[in-house]
């Protein structure tokens, strides 16, 4: 059967024609926080949206939105892990994981918890100087159950296409809320606490010793090490289909449910710039400075808000000219909702005939 016929046969049987990728920003085109982050030793969201890096005492890392991509596949960016301080002897509980958490209410089509539970296939392009075996793991949001598969990088520094399929869970449903339904884990290093058991080929109760069995690579063992990924797609069925390229606008809108900012796209958070800042001028009769912000879309949950000075980039500060020049002052509170927030200065900070201005970030990541 030709590839076109295979694809046609799939349409209507296993997968959707559009919106079939359950992963957001699989092509790494959105990087609202920054395009590079250096010196990272702790877990966090650093560059490309929706992708979280988990680090437990395993080296120091630079993360970046990189332009190395597989040729001819239509990608512009990849996500790059670059080791800058090595850890060649992991302690038992150490690990490195690249992951994305997916909302449970976006996964109900998998029909988990009934006999018709559907398989999912994870496909991606990956490149590393470290050949060997790696583990992909799906975990339930409550960490109660997990399932794992291995893949191998066989050629150093060469883009390779990988697919792994996970069977459905007929025994227990996924939460149908805005909480995490499934965590998609790409293991990059695993201490012995996670490798001494048996990798579960079907959904099983979570056991730490079974999480990363077969992970032979320790990506932290040399400062020469790097790992790059793009074209990540998780879709219903047992067959990987070509990556579903979405427009920049569509991908950005999807990401803004989890993270948004006042800075222009292309301007890193904490940059000293007034472009796009929330701005308010108060007349002499006003004692308190307040300003309201509306988010581009309703966020997944009420977000955590950060306030930044447009002049210095300092976190937790707004800028005012109340003292005759620009001055960073403390915003005393924000009243946050899913759709926006208000920020307020105190009476001592901003007087009449002064302005207050700030940038913000709002994060409702899982």
């Amino acid at each position, binding site marked *: 059967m030709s590839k076109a016929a295979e694809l046609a046969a799939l349409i209507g049987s296993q997968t959707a024609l559009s919106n079939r990728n359950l992963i957001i920003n699989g092509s790494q085109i959105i990087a609202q926080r920054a395009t590079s982050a250096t010196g990272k030793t702790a877990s966090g969201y650093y560059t490309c949206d929706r992708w979280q890096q988990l680090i437990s005492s395993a080296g120091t890392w630079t993360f970046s939105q990189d332009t190395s991509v597989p040729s001819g596949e239509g990608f512009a960016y990849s996500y790059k892990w670059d080791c800058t301080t090595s850890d060649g002897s992991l302690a038992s509980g150490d690990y490195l994981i690249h992951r994305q958490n997916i909302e449970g209410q976006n996964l109900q089509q998998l029909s988990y918890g009934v006999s018709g539970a559907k398989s999912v296939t994870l496909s991606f392009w990956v490149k590393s100087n470290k050949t060997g075996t790696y583990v992909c793991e799906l975990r339930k949001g409550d960490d109660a159950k997990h399932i794992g598969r291995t893949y191998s990088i066989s050629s150093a520094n060469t883009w390779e296409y990988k697919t792994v399929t996970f069977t459905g869970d007929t025994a227990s449903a996924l939460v149908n809320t805005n909480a995490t339904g499934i965590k998609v884990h790409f293991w990059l290093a695993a201490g012995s606490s996670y490798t001494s058991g048996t990798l579960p080929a079907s959904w099983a109760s979570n056991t730490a010793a079974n999480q990363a069995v077969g992970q032979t690579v320790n990506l932290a063992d040399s400062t020469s090490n790097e790992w790059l990924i793009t074209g990540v797609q998780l879709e219903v069925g047992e067959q990987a289909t070509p990556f579903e390229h979405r427009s920049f606008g569509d991908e950005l809108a999807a990401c803004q449910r989890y993270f948004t900012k006042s800075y222009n796209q292309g301007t890193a958070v904490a940059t000293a710039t007034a472009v796009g800042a929330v701005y308010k001028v108060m007349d002499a009769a006003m004692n308190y400075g307040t300003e309201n912000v509306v988010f581009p879309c309703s966020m997944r949950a009420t977000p955590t808000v950060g306030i930044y000075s447009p002049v210095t980039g300092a976190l937790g500060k707004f800028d005012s000219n109340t003292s005759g020049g620009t001055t960073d002052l403390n915003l005393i*509170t924000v009243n946050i909702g899913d759709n926006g927030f208000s920020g307020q200065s105190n009476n001592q900070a901003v007087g009449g005939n002064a302005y207050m201005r700030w940038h913000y970030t709002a994060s409702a990541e899982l």
Partner: protein
Amino acid sequence: MQITSAKYSSPYGEIVCINAVLDGKLLFVPLDPANSDYIEIMRQVAAGDLTIADAD
């Protein structure tokens, strides 16, 4: 996550958020049980590792 301080904020007589320093960053955390930072703050409170100061 390292939380070095947490304090309720109540500008209108109603607690609206927690002003917290998370991993060295001063952030405003809403009282939303679906917010991952709030979940972590309350986890550390329950474990006895963190106390949220009263609002001024």
